[in-house]
């Protein structure tokens, strides 16, 4: 019996000394900050089925997230687009599954393993006072209006995809979207539109959304089609009733 215990102790000691530790095959962990570790836990629960282990992607399910950066992650998670409910033409905005804090953890994790664009600390998106709205307007018309419409209300793309309305998007979300080019949106990186230009652009978007239409009710600012339909239905019906009343026998 004593020999058996001694043998067990020997085997145990040898194993402890020579075997790789349980976590040793994931050396990144040691390099991760506390936030990124929390993000990894969340990732391994909720994202791994489509984006794969270590965010390397799964064919026909989800793309690799190496190099997408924290801006992309926080945009997708905070707007509820990720996690997706199902594979379809476009991930839609919906109530987010994670708190902004958790989204930041996920962002930190993806940033730590692959790098990528981040929203610079230096740009003040909370307070848009002093931004050049006129410049922002020019930039919006050149770069954004073709898909998101002049009124920021969005529009159709091909095969069931669409450019979403910008009304529900916060300043930071708009910045992150330009930086990361979510889904079919082109990337507008900080070398193409500088952080200051992006701030001007966001200020312009917020301004035209807050500014009241000069002509009264704008019917969602979708343009001449809605207005034409409205005046046809409402106006013609009103005129028909008026004519009937004038011509009718009293």
């Amino acid at each position, binding site marked *: 019996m004593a020999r058996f215990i001694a043998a067990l102790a020997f085997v145990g000691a040898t194993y402890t000394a020579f075997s790789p530790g349980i976590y040793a095959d994931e050396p990144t962990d040691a390099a991760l900050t506390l936030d990124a570790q929390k993000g990894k836990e969340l990732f391994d629960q909720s994202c791994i089925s489509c984006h794969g282990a270590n965010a390397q992607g799964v064919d026909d399910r989800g793309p690799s997230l190496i190099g997408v950066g924290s801006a992309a992650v926080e945009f997708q998670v905070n707007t509820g687009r990720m996690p997706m409910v199902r594979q379809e033409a476009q991930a839609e905005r919906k109530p987010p599954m994670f708190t902004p804090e958790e989204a930041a953890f996920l962002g930190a994790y993806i940033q730590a393993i692959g790098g990528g664009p981040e929203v610079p600390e230096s740009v003040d998106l909370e307070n848009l006072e002093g931004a050049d709205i006129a410049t922002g307007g020019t930039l919006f018309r050149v770069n954004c209006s073709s898909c998101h419409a002049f009124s920021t209300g969005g529009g159709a793309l091909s095969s069931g995809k669409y450019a979403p309305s910008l009304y529900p998007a916060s300043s930071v979300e708009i910045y992150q979207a330009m930086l990361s080019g979510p889904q079919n949106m082109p*990337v507008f990186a900080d070398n193409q539109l500088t952080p200051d230009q992006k701030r001007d652009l966001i200020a312009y978007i917020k301004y035209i959304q807050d500014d*009241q239409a000069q002509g009264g009710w704008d019917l969602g600012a979708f343009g001449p089609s809605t207005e034409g339909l409205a005046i046809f239905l409402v106006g013609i019906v009103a005129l028909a009733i008026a004519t009937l009343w004038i011509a009718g026998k009293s």
Partner: protein
Amino acid sequence: MSTELPASGEHGEKAEPFDVLDPNAARFELVKEALRRDGIEILHYEPRFPVPGTKEEKRIVRTISFFFVLSGLAALGFIVAYIWWPWEYEFGGADTWSKWYTPVLGALLGIALGGIGIGILTWSKKLFPVEELVQERHDGASDPVERRLTGATLANIGDETGIARRPMLKRALLFGAAPLGLAALMPIGGLIKDPGDALFTTGFDAEKFNGGKPVRLMREDGTLVRPEDVSVGGQITVFPAIPGGATLKHADSPTLLIHLREPDGAEARANAYEMNRGSQWQNFIAYSKICTHVGCPASLYEQQTNRLLCPCHQSQFHITDNAMPIFGPATRALPQLPIDVDEEGYFYAVSDYKVAIGPAFWEREKK
């Protein structure tokens, strides 16, 4: 129409014909006579309120008065608002008075005009006498007597001019009038202009606009474009870097510079038509922004599916296959601009577009 002469001195009786000049004729009788002469017969005629001053009548009078007064008040309000309402645009927010200037003017003017209209209509519908009139209308062609008389009159006028007898006058008139008609057509001729090669060249034509030096690409604010300005999956609208290159003077020149992903860039190179070979610079590809259907800006770029969409009629172009149309009414590919990077690191156009940009025109194939 024969005139009724006073035939008899009797009055007070319904005489046929009616004596219009009778000083004692009742006014309503005159009205009836006027209608009769127009072929109108009164079938039924009674006042709306045979007993004046009933409750109902007073109520209607009050309603009509209300609309008139409302109209007057709204018109006064309009004048006041027009003069004193703060109308100057105030920046920001929805809670400024000036934003309501136009709606307030519109609403008040609408009430003022509507009030008058409704008042008058109600007056005529609710207070005027109840009447039923019938007017005879003839069927078919006009009376043969009338037709014969009119025909004779017209033929007589023709005879009076004597144009058949005086051929010289006829020819002189023709000579005078025909060139006058041509003169009226002349302003249309002013709209016809030979465009020369304007439809075949854009601002990227080095010979025509840049003294033979290759034209660089610039942004709308005039800054030149370097490869590092456009990230992978990004796109940028570029213009020829010549004076006025981003203005309407060169409205045919806006170009979309796209930075494709590595595999997409390789696919585009492999698919390139003979004409487009070597037009790409690494994974950068530049296409005319002007749709080949009717010339809208086809600039909705889908970076995952590599499609360019035109918002006007939903044409779609396949970026990695020579911007060939794959959906919608466009039938020709978007022309590709051959680009390269010079020793200073700026993009430039190797040559102008190889084919005419934009929608088709008659002489397009001739060059």
